[in-house]
């Protein structure tokens, strides 16, 4: 990415803010022409969108990183379909295998995991298409097609300024696409963005039907879920049982839920402690038995009063500092 070279043509102009740059850092900037909309004010009629693109180079390379491009600042309505179409129809016809987005609206369901249990193989980003192997999660189950609740939105949206990783079918098409992008910029060719599917009122009417799935669908999904849940619970219990007996590197055994009698819980122990103390207090020497006790009590009360007075004085001083002197309203 010869950044200095591409900067040259636009240098001579003297204005402080010059025409659009073509690269930034190691990213190439690809302007996109946006679909027109009649509702827009005229000054924005020809506004462009800018993608920042570079070959994907994660710190821990994965099997697919060699044939992927990384795009930042994707449009909010980017989906697999229109990105696929973008490359197929306007950027040299490279074939895209799939696209991983960093965000979604509504957000991807978060599944609670244990610290150690969740180590996605190969440092894969937590994309939508995460490999759904039967890993054991902290609650519920990793849902599959049957057990998942019906989707209530037809299409996802992206958070503004999000990123995506585009995985091509092979390294060659990836390279081809990259070259085509560079060429486009050099020639100043117009690349236009195709609007996402199902936007506008349609998005909301569809949503309003989708939130009410048919009873049969719901019932079967629940049945599937509960079956899987029972299976997962057994697996989880196995893990817990293992944790109970395996000492960690320091030689300690983690106390976890489960087990025959169940180990003592912290809250319970604390409650007992409080109870015990109370009992001791009740049966023990009353606190006004000795003279020193009354004396100390009085001292304490005195100190408390003094402290409270100081606190209040500070508060009033702060009040004065904040809103000036007190003066009756007029």
């Amino acid at each position: 990415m010869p950044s200095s070279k591409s900067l040259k043509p636009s240098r001579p102009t003297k204005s402080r803010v010059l025409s659009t740059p073509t690269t930034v850092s190691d990213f190439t900037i690809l302007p996109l022409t946006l679909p027109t909309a009649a509702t827009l004010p005229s000054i924005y009629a020809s506004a462009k969108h800018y993608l920042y693109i570079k070959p994907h180079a994660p710190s821990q390379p994965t099997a697919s990183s060699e044939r992927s491009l990384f795009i930042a600042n994707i449009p909010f309505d980017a989906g697999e379909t229109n990105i696929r179409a973008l490359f197929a129809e306007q950027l040299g016809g490279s074939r895209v295998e799939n696209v991983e987005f960093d965000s979604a609206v509504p957000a991807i369901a978060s599944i609670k995991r244990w610290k150690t249990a969740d180590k996605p193989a190969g440092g894969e980003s937590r994309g939508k298409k995460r490999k759904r192997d039967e890993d054991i999660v902290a609650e519920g189950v990793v849902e599959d097609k049957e057990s998942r609740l019906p989707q209530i939105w037809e299409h996802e949206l992206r958070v503004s300024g999000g990123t995506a990783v585009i995985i091509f079918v092979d390294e060659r098409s990836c390279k081809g696409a990259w070259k085509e992008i560079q060429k486009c910029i050099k020639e100043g060719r117009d690349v236009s963005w195709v609007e996402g599917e199902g936007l506008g009122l349609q998005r909301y009417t569809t949503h309003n039907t989708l939130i009410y799935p048919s009873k049969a669908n719901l019932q079967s999904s629940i049945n599937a879920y509960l079956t899987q849940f029972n299976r997962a619970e057994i697996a989880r219990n196995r893990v817990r049982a293992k944790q109970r007996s395996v000492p960690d590197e320091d030689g300690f055994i983690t106390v976890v839920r489960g087990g025959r009698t169940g180990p003592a819980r912290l809250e319970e122990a604390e409650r007992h402690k409080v109870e015990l103390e109370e009992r001791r207090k009740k049966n023990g020497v009353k606190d006004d038995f000795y003279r020193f006790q009354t004396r100390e009590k009085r001292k304490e009360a005195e100190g408390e009063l003094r402290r409270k007075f100081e606190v209040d004085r500070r508060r009033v001083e702060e009040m004065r500092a904040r809103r000036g002197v007190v003066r009756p309203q007029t």
Partner: protein
Amino acid sequence: MAPPGPKRRKLQHSEDNDGNSVSVTENGGPGVTGPTPAKQIASSNAQDHKRRDRTIQDGVYTAEVYKSNMFKLQVDELLQQVKPRYGKKEAPAENAMRTLKSIIEQIPSRAAISISEAETTFKSHGIVIPFPSPRPPQDAKYKLQYDRPSSINATGSYPLKIATRMDDGLTIDLVVTMPKSVFQEKDYLNYRYFYKRAYYLACLAAGIRECKDHIFKVSFDCLNGNQLQPVLVIHPSGDEGIDDFSSSKCRIQIILAFPERTFVDKKLRPHANCVRPKGGDEETEEKPLSATPFYNATLQSDATITAYLKLLHATNTTCDAYKDACILGRVWLKQRGFGSTLRRGGFGNFEWAATMAVLLQANSGAGGSPLSTGYSSYQLFKATLQFLAYKNLSKKPYVFQAPDLTFPKTDAPPPIIFDGPRGLNILFKMTPWSYARLQLEAKLTIETLGDSTFDHFESTFILKTDMLQYRYDASLEVPLSALQLDSTSEEYDQNLGEICRKIYTTLLRALTDRVTALAFLIPDERDWDVSASKPPEDQRRSIIINIATDPANANRAVDHGPAAENKKEAALFRQFWGDKAELRRFKDGSILESVVWSLKDTSAPVLEQIISFVLQKHIGVEAADKTRFISDSFAHLIPAGRIQGQSGVSSFLPCMNALAVVEKDLRALEGLPLTIRHIFAADPRLRYSTVEPPTTTMANSIHVPASLVIQFEGSARWPDDLCAIQRTKIAFLLKLTDLLSEAQPTYSTRVGLENPSQPSQNQAFLDVVAPSGFAFRLRVHHDREATLLDRQLKDKTLDGQSRESAAAALASYKRDFINIPAHTQVLQTLCTRYLALSPAIRLTKRWFASHLLLPHFSAELIELLVVRSFLQPHPWPVPSCATTGFLRTISWISRWDWRHVPLIVDFSSTFSNNPTDLEGTGPKGMKSEDVEKIQTRFEAWRRIDPAMNRVVLFAATNLDNEGTTWTNKAKPEKVVAARMTALAKATTDLMKAENDRVLSISIGEVEQTEKTEAFDPERVFVSHVQEYDIVLHLSPKHSTSAKKKLKPAYKNLQVQQTNGSSDVVCGFHPVELFVEDLQSVYGDAILWFWNPEKTDLIAGIWNPSVAGVRSWKVKAGWNSVPLFVTGKDDEHKEQGVEIQVNKGAICNEIARLGGELITRIEVNR
């Protein structure tokens, strides 16, 4: 000023040189010389004694002596602020006083002349003698005379150091005592004294005006508006000469007095007659003459000016806190609009000080003194208020050292505090209504001070409580011209007084328990130039009668009178009501005289009907016609805003009834695996607090069904896993649907999904549309969720993200399933207890909505804000109509310093609606420890999050002391909260301007008021769209205003898509979904404002941190445009690429997302 208490203490500290005893004497103000320290001295153990003594000193503030430390400290500060400094600023005025004194001393005596001679002499001086009316007879035998005054003294509050610096400036009184030689023994009769006094005053005026060496502006005024007592007012000349005292911001008032014992005291007692009828003195023997208490007291007050100066001064030396208590009293009176002048009620600073001085002395025969000299200033203040509030001085006069005294019997006895040694009724200037008002305000303050939980310093001393729209619910504007009095006649003042009295008694009789207070605002008089006679009153001014209502009775349709058999009373009743009175038989069989008023929506409010009727019947047609009646002026802005009959919530009843039916039907279902334990309402519509009363789905399908929470009985068979619980809940809902459609086929039901991103939070709800058309949304509450979430929160083996999501889930669980149902229940009760609460909440919500702020505040938070002004109404009574409730809430919001002060609402506090029966308030409600706890929690939040990114407003109640339930996650954000405050301030400013306008009709310049227009309440509800950066204009097809016509089209669409499984559309609100999308796509880059009630536009503003040019970043979090930016240094001309928000592309995106919802996008910035 060396009271015994502190002196002794000081001594001790020097004796035992203990390092701990620092700053002890500093803390002890004058207030610590209570009676208690004396007892402590007796202690034998010196060591022990010292310690205990100090305890008292430090703890003294927390005890009864002062309400609390906070209160005491703030009072100290206030006293310091309002006391004049007696320094440089006041020096010119003091100089002027000295000059005046010497001028007066040099005025030569004048020989006695007759009245007509005097008038002509003074005409040549250019002075009109300010004779009181009735004017002196021209043929009077007595002569007028001027001799050098026997003494000239400063008097009043200034030399006593109990004056206050208020905005209207100081008045310094200079009393000139006329010599005895001017008067004759019988001069107390028939105004003779007053004529001589007026002449004397004119002589003084002439002397001061004609003094060549010194220039003062001189004018006449009446002392306390009493036309018998003209006084001389000296204004600074303003010429910046040596005598100019403009910089002191005060005026000097020269008052005349005559020496004591000039006349026989007995002749001036209240029961005596001093104005003989015109007929001649001979006939008097046969018929006892009617007493002239007012005349007598006026005369006596001239005699006692010096005596009172002495009394107050003596009290000041015996009682340390007296001075401060006087100042507190002055502030209190001023903030409530009381004054010494006749028209302001005749209870002002002097009366306060004198009352307190009298109460501080033991009354022979009546035991000890009501106040003790050992009291602190606060105790003196409070005890004096208590005396005023709970002693009925018109029924049982307080007579101080005057054993054999009789008072004239009248049907409306005036209040009396008779000061025997000085022979004066201190309250002689008070009217029945001003006394009633004084008592009411005193009671309110006593009640306020009795509450130890909250700090009431502000409401007692700082707030101006006589703002009409805040204090009163209705007002009458009676133009003086409508009363048809001759303003030039001699009896004008008297007639005006009489007609006010008549209006007062008539209204009181007619309105009975509908009102709690009636207050008269009579135009103030001005001083006039010495060269003219007193100008007649401007008849374009108005009397304003303010009315506070009791909502429970104010709109009652029928007034019951006496029974028909009771002939005498029935006749009186008929006489009063005329043809309005009718004989009716009631359900309980009784036959009563009664009056019936119309309750129809179209008719005027009942109060107005009554008032215009009685004014017409008893005062005059003209008066009734020209009177303007204003009440509840904001209520028409919301549907059903006026309290109808005895209920403020009637428009919500159909929905509440539908809920009762649904609950019954659900509970009747058989075959559920677990029985239903509770069904809780959890929706603003089910607690009477939505702007629009709830409608059926047929009428309006946009609103989401009203939420309910259903809880089943406990069972061990629930899975012990959050996600699995959510699925099980769905299974329950499906079962419910089956059973309900089987048992009640007229119901339409369907299960819907929510929260797709949070599998451990609630996943589904059941929409039930009852045959009545009302729709409800049920969610299942399972209490095990809390435990599981709590456990996850503490589980250290879970990764951070999971624990965070557990925390969020726990917060929303608590809010949805615990706090909202509890809040709903409390509000239901409160709304039925306080009739004005529901309309006030709805009006406040409309205000928030019309300023596009509503979506930023949770409904519950706004409700709490309004509830606060009902449960902590101080310094006012509980609001009794929508307008007062709304305005006081907004006024509180404008004063609320939410950065430093939490909102605390105590639902358990009980205040009665009618301030007259306040005595029964028990020690219920929150303790101050609870408040302390909330305060600590609040402070902790501010420490954790000083930038207020997460919690901006903090609102806690006695049910929920977390404080962040309704405001967590920056709902509202700091900018929005600041905007709320700014808008509330603008609103209160408008109201203040309106208040001033109304007052100026009554008091001020009439010319000015004619220009200003009448106030339109809607002005408070107008929002300006130009202030926003982006405005999305929405298609009217999809906005809520056009819902009715267009919905059927969608209904068809819906039916096709759902294959006819359900034929009801409810809760489909595309604009709301659109805004939600906008919010989740753009995050905090753009802040969106919209009005859910009227979705014709959505407005947005750019986050200022986004709008600027920033260095490039892979994940900026918003759509960006790259730019070349040259380095500032011209030598290098280094170019970098930076980014800026891509407004064009974002607008394009919004246009794409909104599609046909949007008609036009307007970009202002």
